[in-house]
C-alpha cells in the first residue's frame, strides 16, 4: 500500500538503457527504464500488446512468452535477461499463411472466452507441442498449470490443445 511512511526512499527510475531484443524474428533496439521487465518492454515499447498483464508478479501466467523454446513469465523476466535471446509472443505464433493450428483450434473449440489468459496459454501450449507432439491430457494439464484461466474451467482448452496436436502431427 502506498502510504507516506513507506515510500520516500524509492529510487529515481530515470536511467534508461538501450537493449537489443529479438522478438518474433525481428531485432529491435529499444531504450527502456533499467527496471523494466520484458513484459513492459513488449507492451509499452514494442506495442506488442498481445501478452497480457494479469498480476505483474508471477502468479497468473497471462504474460507467458516463449524464450529459447521455453514458456517463460515475461513479467518476472528483467528486460536485460531477454537480450539476444529468441523471444516468441502470441503475435509470433501465426504465419503469413494464417493462424497457428493452436490459435485456430482455440477459436473452433471455444477455448477463449474473455481471451485474457489466451495469449499466455497459447505460448505454454506451443512450447509443449514443440517438445511433445502427442501429449496426454495429464501432460497438457501439467504444462498449463502456471496459466490461470478464470472463464473456461479448462476443459475446452484441453480439447483445443489436443485438436491442434492432432493437426500438427498430420501437417
Amino acid at each position, binding site marked *: *500500500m*502506498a*502510504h*507516506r511512511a*513507506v*515510500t520516500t526512499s*524509492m529510487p529515481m*527510475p530515470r536511467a534508461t538503457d538501450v537493449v537489443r531484443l529479438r522478438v518474433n524474428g525481428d531485432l529491435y533496439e529499444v531504450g527502456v*527504464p533499467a527496471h523494466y521487465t520484458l513484459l513492459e518492454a513488449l*507492451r509499452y515499447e514494442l506495442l*506488442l*500488446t*498481445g*501478452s*497480457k*498483464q*494479469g*498480476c*505483474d*508478479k508471477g*502468479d*497468473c501466467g*497471462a504474460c507467458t512468452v516463449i524464450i529459447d523454446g521455453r514458456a517463460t513469465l515475461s513479467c518476472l523476466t528483467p528486460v536485460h535477461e531477454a537480450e539476444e535471446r529468441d523471444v516468441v*509472443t*502470441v*503475435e509470433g505464433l*501465426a504465419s503469413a499463411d494464417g*493462424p497457428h493450428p*493452436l*490459435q*485456430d483450434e*482455440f*477459436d*473452433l*473449440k*471455444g477455448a*477463449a*472466452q*474473455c*481471451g*485474457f*489468459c*489466451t*495469449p499466455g496459454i497459447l505460448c505454454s501450449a506451443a512450447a509443449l507441442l514443440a517438445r511433445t507432439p502427442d501429449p496426454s491430457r495429464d501432460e497438457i*494439464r*501439467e504444462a*498449463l*498449470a502456471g*496459466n*490461470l*484461466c*478464470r*472463464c*473456461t*474451467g*479448462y*476443459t*475446452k*482448452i*484441453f480439447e483445443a490443445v489436443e485438436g491442434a496436436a492432432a493437426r500438427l502431427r498430420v501437417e
Partner: protein
Amino acid sequence: MIKRAHRVGSELTVVGQPQRKIEGLAKSTGRAIYTDDLTLPGMLHGKILRSPHPHARIVSIDTTAAEALEGVHAVVTGRDMPITYGIIPWTPDEFPLCVDRVRYIGDGVAAVAAVDEDTAIRALAEIRVEYEELPPFLDPFDSLAADGSTPWIHQPKKEGRNGNITKHVHLEFGDVDGLMDGSDVVVEGEYHFEGTTHTPIEPHCAIGLFESGGGPGGKLTVWSATQVPHYLHRELARVLEIDPARVRVVQPLVGGAFGGKSEPFDLEFCVAKLSMKAGRPVKILYTREEVFYAHRGRHPFHMRYRTGCRADGRLRSVDARIVLDGGAYASFGLVTTYYSGQLLCAPYAMPAYRFDSTRVYTNKPACGPKRGHGSVQPRFAFEVQMDKLAERVGLDPIDMRRLNFIGEHTRTVNDLRVTSNGFLECLDAVERSSDWREKFRKMPFGQGIGVAGSTYISGTNYPIYPNDMPQSAVQMQIDRSGRVAVFSGASEIGQGCDSLVAYIACEELGVPLDHVRVLRGDTDFTPVDLGAYSSRVTFMLGNAAIDAARKLRKMVCEAVAADWEVKPSEVLLAGGRALWAPDTARQMTVREAFNLAEARFGTLGATGWYDTPKDVHGEYRGGTIGASPAYSFTAHVAEVEVDVETGFVDVKKIWIAHDCGRALNPVLVEGQMEGSAYMGFAEAIMEEHVFKDAEHGRGGLHNAPSLLDYRIPTSLDTPELESLIVESIDPEGPYGAKEAGEGPLHPSIPAIANAIYDAVGVRLDRLPFSPPAVWRALEAAASSGGARKPAAPGTVEVTAPRP
C-alpha cells in the same frame, strides 16, 4: 418487440449449430484490444492513494508536495468530486474518493496523474493525510449489535436506527409455523458461506479523456473494462455534473468480469477528473492488490435453515434467517438481500416459506454481485438441508428432488411465474451419466457422490433505475455488398453476446457469419443495453436482435417476391442465398436480394428492442426482485474422494445438466456450464476472502491480496467436467433460449458437500471444504465413534419422529 419465436427447431440453420465466435481469432492471435492495450497521445498515468485504516476520519489532506513534483500534472481528492454514487439509486453511499471518512483498508483518498507510473507512485508518497482512527466493525454480528456509542459506518437514514444495517427484509408466504409444526420431519442447520471474489484475469483499467473547447462544457470520453457501460455513463454524468449528452463510454473487450465490474469504481471517476484537470488523457490500471480491495464479491452469509417435510418426503415449510456481511458500502446489497431469499422457491414446490435477511456494513471491502448473485449461498444451505431430509425419510436424494418438482407453467410460493422447466430432464441426465444408481451409498468408504439442483433468473423485470424504456436494443443495417452491420451496446465479457447477435443476423437474413460486423461497446453509437448482469443478455439482447433482423428480413423477402412475382412468405433466406420455397432451384445470392431491397425501400436499417412483460407477477410484485421472464434449471452430480489422513477432498468429476431453454451455440453454452461449475468447485474447496483480525496483524487488512495466496484452481486442480445440455424451449426466449452463464454454478457447492457426506458420513456446513476444515470434521467424528459410510436409503428404519 417479438412475442414468440415463429420458427421451430428443425427449420433453424444457424442457431443450434457449433459456431466460431466473431472475435475468436482476434483473441487467439493477440489482436484483440482490451483497455490497457490502448495508449493515447500524451497519455498520463494515474495512481490512487488508499487508506491504511479500516475506519477513520480524514482530518486533513495536504497535496502541495505531490503537486510540486516534476512530472505531476494533476492531483484530486474527494473534495473535487463531492457527490455520492451507488449502482442502486436508493443507496448512493460512496464518493469517488473519500471526503471525510475512510471505511476499509484500501478505500481511495486521493489520486494523481503524472508522466509515468513511477512518478505517479512517488507523488502518492508525497501526499500527507492525517487520520483520526475510529473503532472498526469487522464482524457482522458486532455491526448488528452496535448501539451507536462508537460512530456508525454510515449515518442512519432515520434517527434511532442502526446505521450499520444496509437492509432488512422479512417476507413470509403461507402458514410457515403451522406447516412446520405439522411436518413429520424437521431438519435444522446452521451454515456459513465464506466470502469469495471474482478475480477476472484482467485487472480493472480505465482511461479518461476530457476535451475542452468547441462549445461550452467540453466532452468526456472514458474507456473502461466495465460490464455496465450504460450505468457508468449515467453515473459519470451525474457525479461529475456533465450533461450526459457530452459523456461517452467506450468498452473495449473485457478480460473477464463475473459481476466484479458491474458498477462504477473509483478509477473511472478519477481518470475523468484527472483528465479534466490535466487537459490530457489519463490511464489507471489497478494492481492485482487493488482488484482485491475493489472486490464487490460474494457476501459472506451466516444462515440458519429449518426445513420440514412429510414422512413421504414432500416439502411443507421452509424458514430461513440470514445475516449478510456486506463490507463498507451498499453496492448491489439491496438486491442481494432480496435475492438471498427470493430465488429459493424453485425448482421445488414449497407450500410455506419465510426468510429474514439482514445485510450489515463492516469495515472491509464492499461485497456485491458475483456470478449467481445472492442465491448461491442459500442454495448451498438449502440443498444440503434437502439431502439431510432425504436421508431422514429414507429417500434417494434424486428421487426426493423429483418428488418435490414444482412443474412447468406454474407459480412459486412467492408468486414468481415459471414457464418452461426442464429440471426433471436435468435430474435424469445427471443420474444416468454419473451411474448414480451404481454409486450412491455403494462406493467404498472415502469415495462418494452427491446431487443438488437449482434455478436462476434470465434477467428481471426491473431495470436498476425505474424507467419504461427498452431493456435491450440493437440497430441493424444491411447494404448492397451483402453485409450486415449490427450496432450492439451489450457487454461482451467473454460470454459471447457479440457473437449472439451475429448468429441471429445469419439465421434471419441468410448471410454467412463472416459477412456480419458487430460494432459494439460505445455509448456514442450503440443503442442502450443495460449491461451484462442478472443473466439477462441472451434473453433480452437475443429478442431485440430477432426483432431488428425480422424487420429487415421482411423487406428483403418482399423485394425478392416482387421480382419473382411470388408471395413473400415463400421466400427463404439461408446459406447465403434467397430461395423460393416451393422450388429451391429458383434462387439468387443474398447480395442480389439485398440490392433488390435497397432499390425498392431505400437504405436499409432497422432497430429492434426488448422489454420484459410487466404483468407476469401476481399480487405480490414478483417477489420484489422484479420477476424474471424465464428461469433456468440445473442439476449437478459431483463425485469425490476424501483423503481421511489429510482432509484433502479430490473432486473427481462434476456432471452438469442445465436447462438453458435452447442452446443457440452449444459450444458457448457448454463453456458457460463448465466455467460455472469450475467456479462453484473453486468456492467449495479453496476460495476464501479472509481478513486479518486485530490479534493477527492489522485488523481489516486483506489476508492475501494476490493470485498466489488467494487460491483459484489451476488446470491441475480442476475436476473433469461433463456438460449435459437440456433444452426446454422457452415460449418467450429467443428461439426458446434462457440463460447459461450463472445458473450452472449453484449446485456445484452443495453437490460436493453432499458427496463428501456420502464418502465419509461427515456433514460440512461451513465453506470452504479445505483440508484443515475437513480434517477437523473427521477428527470430531472420530472422537464420537468414528466417521463411516452412511447407510443406503431403505436399509434403515425411517426416522419419522420430529427432533
